[in-house]
């Protein structure tokens, strides 16, 4: 018997039972569809985080406070740390060879008001180098200067969003805004950058000298009573310095912080690559978790096919008998039923891939409070889903097909 004949026969009998065939396929469609959707969204979320972190640049290191008693990066988790970094640390780091400059930052959510208008922004207290490290560009005016940092000037640079909210089309430069009843003069506006993460637009931002932030708005102290900084970004002259600088910063800060050999680091120096690694691990686990849930529905779909094929074998016992009487071999009957199961699952798989991709595309259009996840239907996922559906078809079809093929022609002919 030719393969083409097997396929034709399979299609004929599936078409003869349209409703049953489509309901059976529905199991696979839902299974494959949800695998595709969830994997695509997971991949999209991963890409989003990756791109956000990549934006920081590959020749940048970050120093964060760390709980010296906690293992590894877990010690940097918010809530477990006490402030340990200071402006003096940042200045010392800046002198290490290979370091182009440092940008210590403190940040907080603040309400910025001007007249009756108000905007909520992430306010960064920082230094001039931060403009470059954060990949922002100026739209108008100028950024924070060294003299502003030294003299704790009450100046502020607004992101494009708050600038628009507070001043509309008017020129914000020279205007005075209020944060916590303190006045700050707008000296510049950042060009819009676009993008968002966790519902927060990248442009809902404002920046001021870190000294002004510490003295006029939010002051936090280290254990030894100095003004603390939340993080220090280090820009290197070249990315090849990452490893030596990481080592030197660690040595330097241990000395500065007077840590004995038995004490752990009260800070962590991480590279962009390490950050990516941590986040990819998290999103990867998340994607696998979602994928496994979806796989369960794929499994259920496969069981559905097996169930229907078994019913079909019983129902078509006479047909099998007739086919055998006119010369069908075991293999012919086996192939016919296997092809039917495979056709069901592959057709279901293809529809599932299309449907899942469509849903993933739909999700990409939704704005989750500022975060847009561009779901990615990768060829790998599609190939995987289709392969799995072929395997499911064959596995769930093999037992019913063997039952059909092993029927005795006489019994089959006189059945029912």
């Amino acid at each position, binding site marked *: *018997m*030719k393969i083409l*004949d097997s396929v034709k*026969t399979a299609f*004929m*009998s599936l078409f*003869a039972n349209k409703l049953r065939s489509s309901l059976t396929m529905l199991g696979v469609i839902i299974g494959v569809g949800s695998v595709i959707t969830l994997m695509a969204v997971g991949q999209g979320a991963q890409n989003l985080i990756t791109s956000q972190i990549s934006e920081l640049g590959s020749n940048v290191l970050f120093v964060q406070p760390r709980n010296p008693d906690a293992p590894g990066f877990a010690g940097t988790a918010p809530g477990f740390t006490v402030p340990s970094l200071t402006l003096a640390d940042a200045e010392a780091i800046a002198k290490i060879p290979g370091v182009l400059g440092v940008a210590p930052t403190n940040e907080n959510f603040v309400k910025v008001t001007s007249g009756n208008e108000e905007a909520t922004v992430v306010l960064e207290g920082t230094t001039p180098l931060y403009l470059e490290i954060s990949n922002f560009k100026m739209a108008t005016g100028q950024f924070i200067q060294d003299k502003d940092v030294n003299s704790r000037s009450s100046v502020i640079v607004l992101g494009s969003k708050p600038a628009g909210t507070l001043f509309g089309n008017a020129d914000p430069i020279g205007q005075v805004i209020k944060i916590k009843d303190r006045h700050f003069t707008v000296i510049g506006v950042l060009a819009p950058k676009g993008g968002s993460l966790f519902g927060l637009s990248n442009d809902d931002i404002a920046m001021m000298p870190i000294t002004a932030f510490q003295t006029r708005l939010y002051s936090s102290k280290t254990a030894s009573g100095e003004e603390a900084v939340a993080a220090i970004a280090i820009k290197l002259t070249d990315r090849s310095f990452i490893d030596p600088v990481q080592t030197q910063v660690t040595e330097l800060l241990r000395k500065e912080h007077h840590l004995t050999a038995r004490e752990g680091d009260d800070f962590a120096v991480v590279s962009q690559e390490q950050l990516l690694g941590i986040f990819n691990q998290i999103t990867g686990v998340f994607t696998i978790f979602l994928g496994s849930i979806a796989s369960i529905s794929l499994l259920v779909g496969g069981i559905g096919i097996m169930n229907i094929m078994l019913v079909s074998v019983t129902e078509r016992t*006479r*047909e099998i*008998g*007739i*086919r*055998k*009487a*006119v*010369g*069908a*071999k*075991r*293999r*012919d009957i086996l192939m016919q039923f296997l092809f039917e199961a495979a056709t069901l699952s592959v057709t279901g798989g293809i529809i599932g891939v299309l449907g899942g991709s469509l849903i993933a595309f739909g999700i990409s259009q939704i704005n989750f409070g500022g975060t847009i996840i561009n779901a990615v239907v990768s060829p790998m996922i599609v190939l995987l889903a289709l392969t799995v559906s072929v395997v499911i078809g064959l596995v769930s079809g093999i037992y019913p097909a063997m039952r059909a093929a092993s029927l005795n*022609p*006489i019994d089959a*002919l006189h059945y029912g």
Partner: protein
Amino acid sequence: MAESKIEPNLKVTGPRMISLRNVTKVYTMGKVEIMALRGVSLDVDEGEMVAIIGASGSGKSTLMNIIGCLDRPTSGQYLLGGVEVGQLNDNELAVVRSKKLGFVFQDYSLLRRATAVNNVELPLMYSGVRQKRERAMESLRRVGLAERANHKPTELSGGEQQRVAIARALINQPKLILADEPTGNLDSVATGEIMNLFDQLNREGITIVMVTHEMELAHRCKRIVRVRDGKIVEDQLTNR
């Protein structure tokens, strides 16, 4: 097991088509053994038209199944066209069924969802023959149903359905057609038509073995074999 006492048919019309020697068939149902055939010897030559008659339970269906290679004898020898087929495996039997035999059943045994011509083509699918459609149409023409080729069985009368089944039996150009109560579900007019068709095919040289319980039909054959309790008890020529 003693061989049948009945004298074998001496009228030789052609080379030997079927040769059964001391064939037995035992069915085991749980712990009970049922002896359906108790040593049957039968020779049928090419060109014969034989009626096998007997009460239900006599073993005539078992005999037909063995002749038709749907079943294997428990013991004894079966030569079909000079080839030993008694102990072939399932696949080899399937090839024999496809190449050497044509079956006609009481209930027509057509695929309900397929058209007449698709039904007639079916055996070709398993014998790997090309030009299925042409040969199927030719076969349908032979039974006078070419114009109904695209009708489904449900749209055909009983007699027409049985003619489709005969066209299917003819498609691989077998020398032997086995018919199991082929007119059992038909009225007298349709029965006449089917019997005429068998006559015609027999005249064209096809050997026909037919199970029936109607003596009137048996007498339209050239030879009557009566089976009782798993043995051939009578084997005689009719006056045709």
